[in-house]
């Protein structure tokens, strides 16, 4: 197992060592995949975007100033790659706002014999996917991936306060839209 720290591998990769970069990919690919998948919820899109993120990182190694950790820098590239994709997809679908139709397309007590929890989980997934991209990214990173506000802020390139505010707004939106499915009278 390669014991060299990331910073050494980065230096070697900058000097043209493809093997050093491959080791960096091996170390961080799982996390990159999870971050992107948590935002896209699609295996095929995640595969494409993970490739793009590693390619972008490789081609931008010269601009990495070593002030932050390599992993933080790489995860930020991954988040930005996924965010760009979400924005583009939102434009292509003609929506960037939270869509009511996602919620109104069925009732919580549907004829199918699915459990209430499974139904709610599916509704939540749809509703989170319909959040504006930056709200969605904050929610995915913190609520799904378990990152702290500080870590999410580093990846998103904003302040912790902004992350906190986006999460608050995201939760308010989700709660308002999912209220019919939350089992309260």
């Amino acid at each position: 197992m390669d014991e060299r720290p990331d910073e050494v591998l980065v230096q070697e990769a900058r000097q043209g060592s493809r093997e050093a970069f491959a080791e960096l990919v091996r170390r961080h690919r799982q996390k990159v995949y999870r971050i992107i998948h948590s935002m896209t919820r699609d295996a095929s899109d995640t595969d494409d975007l993970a490739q793009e993120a590693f390619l972008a990182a490789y081609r931008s190694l010269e601009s990495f100033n070593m002030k932050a950790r390599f992993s933080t820098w790489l995860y930020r590239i991954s988040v930005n790659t996924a965010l760009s994709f979400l924005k583009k997809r939102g434009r292509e679908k003609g929506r960037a706002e939270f869509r009511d139709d996602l919620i109104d397309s069925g009732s919580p007590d549907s004829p199918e014999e699915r459990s209430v929890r499974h139904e709610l989980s599916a509704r939540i997934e749809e509703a989170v996917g319909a959040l504006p991209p930056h709200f969605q990214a904050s929610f995915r990173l913190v609520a799904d991936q378990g990152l702290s506000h500080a870590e999410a802020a580093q990846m998103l390139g904003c302040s912790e306060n902004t992350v906190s505010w986006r999460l608050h707004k995201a939760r308010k939106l989700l709660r308002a839209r999912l209220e019919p499915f939350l089992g309260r009278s």
Partner: protein
Amino acid sequence: MRCDKARRWVSDDLDGALPASRKARLEGHLAGCADCRAYLGDLELIADGARSRPADDPPPGYWPDFGRRLERRLASPAPPARTAPRLGHRRWAWAGAASLVVVAAAIYIGFLRPGAEQDAAWFPNGSSLASILLEAEDDPDLAGRLDRMVSASIEELTVGPDEDIPAPFADDPLFWEGLSEEELRFIASELEAETDRGVRP
């Protein structure tokens, strides 16, 4: 504490980001606010539902293929950056649009604006007023047109008599003859006060 603030803190608390000092205040608010307790309950349900999805990991055997494809792409030369040509294209588009706006504005000012024909008839392009006056000294025709233009401008700016109002009563001799001595003295004193002329007592 207001419910808006409490709900922001509820969100932070779910992420483990609420300082202990605020947590105590939040719990105090929740103890007395049924709406905010219900809000917290809903957010916990949403959080549980969001976490109950299957893991995000790829299928077994995925990574070797991922690595091979990435290696192939790393080995191929980077495609030319799209940013510069696109920006350049947009710059030309903006420049073209700006030119059209300038041309449209020039057409409007030069030909369509009311009074533009008169201006355009004698104002040489790019001349200042000083150069026009100098030119008029040697050109009687231009000087005449300039005079007419200035006179027309003065007339345009001068408020003319309102034609709806009958001729001033002061022009009517019968008006003055019908006034009493007292009224005449009053008018005289008002005129003196207004114009600061005349003999004051």
